[in-house]
């Protein structure tokens, strides 16, 4: 075990895989930084410092700095993958799927199916998502609800440095296109990370707190909020299962359903807006498949149906708070 920051787990894992497999290439805006400047390359190594040092080690044909052209970046990743490489493309902010969705949704995700199973498309698309930086409506969004709905994509949402390492390794070695969502407010999070060839299979949720009374499902920044609530309630003798799905596509339905079969109560806490989101998806799953176990209505705790506001007070009020999460848990506990 080594202590490592979330962001460092990203770059370490990429470097290890690039070392191991010459087909792995990285591309994106400023992933080198300083190209074409007097200060020279490696000025930055990605604005999240998630590619620092790669250019020096692997050179310009494997660490490709691109102009501001997200469609071309995603499309190039698609072409690299079809041509036998294993691209890791960075979308600086998840919000930029707005300018590049076609290549993700209508190309990468569908090649294998449209081509009758005769190709693979091993591309990883990394992107920084989430609020917490007061970056306002166009630089703070969650997009997993959009991408999870798209058949052909796998969607990964690591919530700890260890999960970054284990899941990113799996993503890079996976032969299907994988969306890898890094929460920007977690980049500075430190944690123990297993050494060596550590990997985590997709579709296996992680139980971060165990209890018998309520099932809480969450990930990313809000997972910490949920754990805090669970810890607080534990002191009162209320037990919460806190489940981090780790991957939303595939989703570990079993882990969630098994837990609800015991607790009979579900609270899903998610950062995406409320309509057609992951929270509704999981609530509907449970309402269907664990109907008879349910003792209370499944609760979704999400931001409101609004864009993301700028001011500190507003962003804080926008995000689900521990108070709101606690209230939802108490609501299902107190039902009828």
């Amino acid at each position, binding site marked *: 075990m080594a202590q490592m920051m979330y962001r460092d787990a990203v770059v370490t894992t990429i470097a290890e895989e690039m070392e191991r497999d010459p087909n792995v*290439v990285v*591309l994106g805006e400023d992933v080198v930084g300083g190209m074409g400047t007097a200060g020279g390359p490696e000025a930055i190594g990605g604005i999240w410092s998630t590619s620092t040092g790669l250019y020096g080690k692997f050179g310009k*044909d*494997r660490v*490709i700095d*691109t*102009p501001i*052209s997200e*469609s*071309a*970046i*995603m*499309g*190039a*990743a*698609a*072409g*690299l*993958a*079809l*041509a*036998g*490489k294993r*691209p890791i493309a960075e979308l600086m902010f998840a919000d930029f799927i707005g300018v590049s969705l*076609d*290549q993700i949704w*209508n*190309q990468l995700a569908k*090649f*294998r*199916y*449209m*081509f*009758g*199973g*005769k*190709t*693979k498309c091993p591309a990883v698309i990394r992107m920084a998502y989430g609020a917490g930086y007061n970056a306002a409506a166009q630089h703070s969004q969650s997009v997993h609800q959009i991408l999870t709905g798209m*058949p*052909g994509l*796998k969607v990964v949402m690591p919530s700890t440095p260890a999960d970054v390492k284990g899941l990113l390794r799996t993503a890079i070695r996976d*032969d*299907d296109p994988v969306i890898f969502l890094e929460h920007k407010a977690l980049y500075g999070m430190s944690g123990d990370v297993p050494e060596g060839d550590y990997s985590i299979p997709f*579709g296996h949720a992680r139980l971060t707190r165990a209890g018998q009374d309520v099932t809480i499902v969450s990930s990313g920044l809000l997972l910490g909020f949920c754990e805090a609530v669970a810890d607080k309630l534990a002191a009162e003798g209320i037990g919460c299962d806190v489940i981090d799905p780790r991957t939303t596509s*595939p989703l570990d339905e079993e882990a969630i359903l098994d837990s609800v079969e015991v607790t009979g109560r579900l609270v899903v806490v998610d950062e995406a807006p409320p309509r057609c989101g992951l929270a509704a998806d999981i609530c509907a799953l449970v309402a269907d498949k664990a109907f008879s176990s349910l003792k209370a209505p499944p609760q979704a705790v999400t931001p409101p149906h609004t864009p993301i506001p700028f001011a500190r007070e507003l962003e804080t009020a926008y995000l689900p708070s521990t108070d709101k999460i606690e209230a939802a848990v108490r609501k299902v506990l107190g039902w009828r």
Partner: protein
Amino acid sequence: MQLSRDALLRAYRQMKVIREFEERLHTEIQTGEIAGFTHLYCGQEAVAVGVCEHLSNDDKIVSTHRGHGHCLAKGCDVNGMMAEIWGSREGLCKGKGGSMHIADIDQGMLGANGIVGAGAPIAVGAALAAKLNGEGKVSIAFSGDGACNQGTTFEAMNLAVVTQAPCIFVFENNHYSEHTGVDYAVGTARDIASRAEAFGMKVWRGDGTDFFSVHDTMREVLEYVRAGNGPAAVEFDTERFFGHFEGDPQRYRGPGELDRIRETRDCLKIFRASVTGAKLLDHADLDALDAEVLKAIDDAVDKARAADRPTPEDVLADVYIAY
């Protein structure tokens, strides 16, 4: 450079296969047996063949919604394609893709594409892979005069220049995007190549109705790109003999336009006149090929018609390799 007799016969045969493939589809589609949207390549054969005759399986191409010609020229199997268009599970894509999504990765054919402009960035990616492999292979993006207005096409050109990717942008200017004329939709009118030039690429222009113009031009372009000079672009002036898609009433055509282009701008006629005029091949050679090709297309249709249909369970297959 003078082509060998074999090369000439092969080029003619390739063009003729495309022509008859498409003419036959045009007829078959009237019966309602074939589903979906179909865009025929008739009239542009010299471009696909003039380009692809230079390529090996390790060179890649990325095609468009009007992809049959590119597929056939790049070596996709006629029977597999016909079966695919018929929606059979014996089709090249098991009936999942259809006309707009035919691909054959082993042949270096990375897919027709239903999204206008989507191909160019993908081709740049394939070119970056070729560059990394360092074996002088190239990747080619076919785009129409309409696709040249899509942002992705521009982004791809710039990215190719910036990364010095061995990518060739082949613009097939058939003067129409759907029902709209190129004079309207492309700000710079008939000149697409000068746009590419403004992105810092070396560009060529050729007559897309003349196989030899295409083939000679592409020889130069490929030499330049394979030598590691970065990307390049070529614009070929050509003609589309059918409507945008099957069913298009073509009210945008001028009086007599279709007859005129069939008469004076038919790449097969032009090829035949040229090679027989120069006594490189005689009419009998070509007539024999014509008959052979017609037979092959007949066969392909018969096979497609008789081929296995997909089953409902097939819907679920091949979404992921493992999930």
